[in-house]
């Protein structure tokens, strides 16, 4: 990892730990936006992390920059960091001016309506995609009808009211793939957090005169949870390293499927080990598990991406199965 990446991930971690605590996460689940937290995110330069130096970024490897999204997930993603990072990437690749303030990406239909747009109500810049064309929009060109994701995060309907767009260009990449990539990384981060919370709880909670973590039945469950969290993390690496390359579609498909499955298994174990307290609004576990359940469905659930990947594999045929899969291979960014 380069020095710049390390600095960036270290400052992001510190920022989330100190400025975006549980209170900010809970606020985000009511659709609220922690403005001073966002100011700190911008001060740290995080929204520009995916950009090359020429585009106004730091020129760090894409996969390393995407670690910020994983960190955001670990801390419950209380702000549109992933959305703004990707919006800037879309804008930069299309040669358009970068976002001002928090941003998001919206896919518009021919009637000028976009649904399920994360954080739209708080976005100052909206990257609109319409029939393969990208357009940079500001908040006053849109009307937003607030809605909520399955975990209470803002996920709104957006209507184009003024079509006098600032600038247009061909869309540089697929919105669903980019969105799926963000959710994969957030899932990897949040599932790791869930595993840590569960491990800590099992070590604290005493029943039958000793911590439940001493029970073999619980240990086997925790081992499974840790393994699934590791698999989701590896799947996220796989997708992040492939992003921007020739195998990105297949790698993202595989990772969204695998991470989504890990979430199902892992979150169920976390709740089982936490018992009744983990089923309460008061306990923080749901800030992560409900987000995980929402994210595994957003930008294509497992079945969607499995169909995509399955079709490419099946069209290659039985005898080309292994050569096809080994062709979808990623490497470390540096030796």
């Amino acid at each position: 990892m380069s020095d710049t990446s390390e600095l960036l991930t270290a400052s992001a971690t510190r920022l989330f730990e100190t400025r975006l605590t549980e209170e900010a996460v809970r606020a985000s689940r009511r659709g609220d936006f922690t403005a001073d937290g966002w100011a700190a995110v911008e001060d740290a330069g995080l929204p520009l992390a995916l950009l090359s130096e020429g585009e106004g970024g730091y020129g760090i490897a894409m996969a390393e920059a995407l670690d910020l999204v994983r960190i955001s997930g670990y801390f419950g993603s209380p702000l549109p960091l992933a959305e703004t990072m990707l919006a800037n990437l879309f804008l930069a690749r299309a040669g358009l001016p970068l976002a001002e303030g928090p941003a998001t990406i919206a896919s518009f239909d021919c009637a000028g309506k976009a649904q399920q747009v994360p954080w739209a109500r708080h976005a100052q810049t909206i990257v609109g995609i319409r029939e393969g064309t990208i357009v940079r929009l500001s908040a006053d060109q849109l009307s937003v009808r607030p809605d909520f994701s399955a975990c209470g995060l803002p996920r709104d309907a957006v209507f184009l009211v003024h079509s006098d767009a600032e600038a247009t260009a061909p869309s540089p990449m697929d919105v669903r793939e980019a969105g799926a990539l963000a959710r994969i990384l957030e899932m990897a981060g949040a599932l790791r957090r869930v595993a840590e919370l569960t491990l800590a709880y099992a070590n604290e909670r005493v029943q039958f005169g000793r911590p439940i973590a001493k029970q073999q039945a619980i240990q086997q469950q925790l081992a499974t949870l840790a393994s699934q969290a590791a698999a989701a993390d590896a799947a996220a690496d796989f997708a992040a390293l492939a992003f921007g390359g020739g195998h990105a579609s297949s790698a993202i498909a595989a990772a969204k499927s695998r991470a989504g499955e890990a979430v199902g298994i892992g979150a169920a174990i976390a709740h089982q080990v936490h018992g009744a307290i983990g089923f309460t609004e008061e306990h923080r576990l749901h800030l992560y598990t409900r987000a995980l359940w929402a994210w595994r469905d957003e930008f294509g659930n497992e079945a969607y991406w499995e169909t995509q990947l399955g079709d490419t594999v099946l069209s290659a045929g039985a005898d080309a199965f292994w050569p096809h899969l080994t062709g979808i291979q990623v490497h470390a960014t540096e030796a």
Partner: protein
Amino acid sequence: MRLKFPPAPQSNAAEELRAEVRAFLAEELAGVSALIKARSWNGFDAAFSRKVGERGWIGMTWPKRYGGHERRNSERYVVLEEMLSAGAPVAAHWIADRQSGPLLLKFGTEEQKQTVLPRIAAGEGFACIGMSEPDAGSDLASIRTRAELIDGGFRINGTKLWTTLAHHAHYMVLFCRTSGTPADRHNGTSQLLIDLSAPGITIRPIVDLAGEHHFNEVHFEDVQVPDTALIGTMGQGWHQVMSELAYERSGPERYLSSMALLVELIRALGSSPAREARIAIGRLSAHLLVLRHMSRSVAWMLEKGEDAALHATIVKDLGALFEQEIPDVARRLVSAEPDDPATQSFCTVLAYTVANVPAFSLRGGTREILRGIIARGLGLR
């Protein structure tokens, strides 16, 4: 608590090697049936192993002075995964290449290394693992096989069980007690290199669920071996055997055992598969891609000399789930009875794989033992 699987770097040498191995296998396996390929690393063919040895693909990472080729672990990994995915009959050399050779390299005497390793690397010396016993399965420390110190060597009495390939192997790496009693647990155990032609050794076949003979019971009755048979340090057997198990758990054979069935499933699904089949194949492919990414990472960690035991254990546990699930997925996607001639290749491979999968979460450490190891890695035990 982040169990990070570091991605391996790009290696052009490894990809060139992959093409070479594929060309070799295309020729060697031409006309071999899917059922034979389904044997995976249980398929035994001494002539094939000699050819692999001639190519320089056994003992690839070992020093040249012991018959090795001083290549990188990532290159060795390519050979392994290509052999397994193609269903090559690698059993003869597999165990020696994977663990007995590396164990000798790490703990063996100079004489052991010079006499045994070159034979293994040539694909001519086969080894088996003498760990399990009738009363010592997962609880390996309770072994009873005993090597008594006698003048100039050891006298061995006891029985080893589930010994894969003992009937073809030249050597056994025997884990036994050299002092104390089973109550002493890890203390007082040692490893000996046994020449299986020694008098007093009886090898009896055990036929498995699929009707095949891989397993054996190996009985030692007053078997005398010289003191040069000792591997490593007397009394350090437990420590050494744990290091051997790390090799045993780290490879791609821990998730590729049902590959032949997956390939036949794709063939049987034909050109216009139903939606549920497209989803199922996509899901299995996703698992395979991520497992392979994790497994290559373990190989890379080992190449860097890092401790990958916990990572390898996780890959083996996840890999066994995947391998075991494939027949269940397959039989729900193809409506056929096992004796239907129209889907014969698929059905014979399915029936064979169904009968083999119970072993996948037993061999090399049961699922429960592996999860216990992971729990220990999490600081729970």
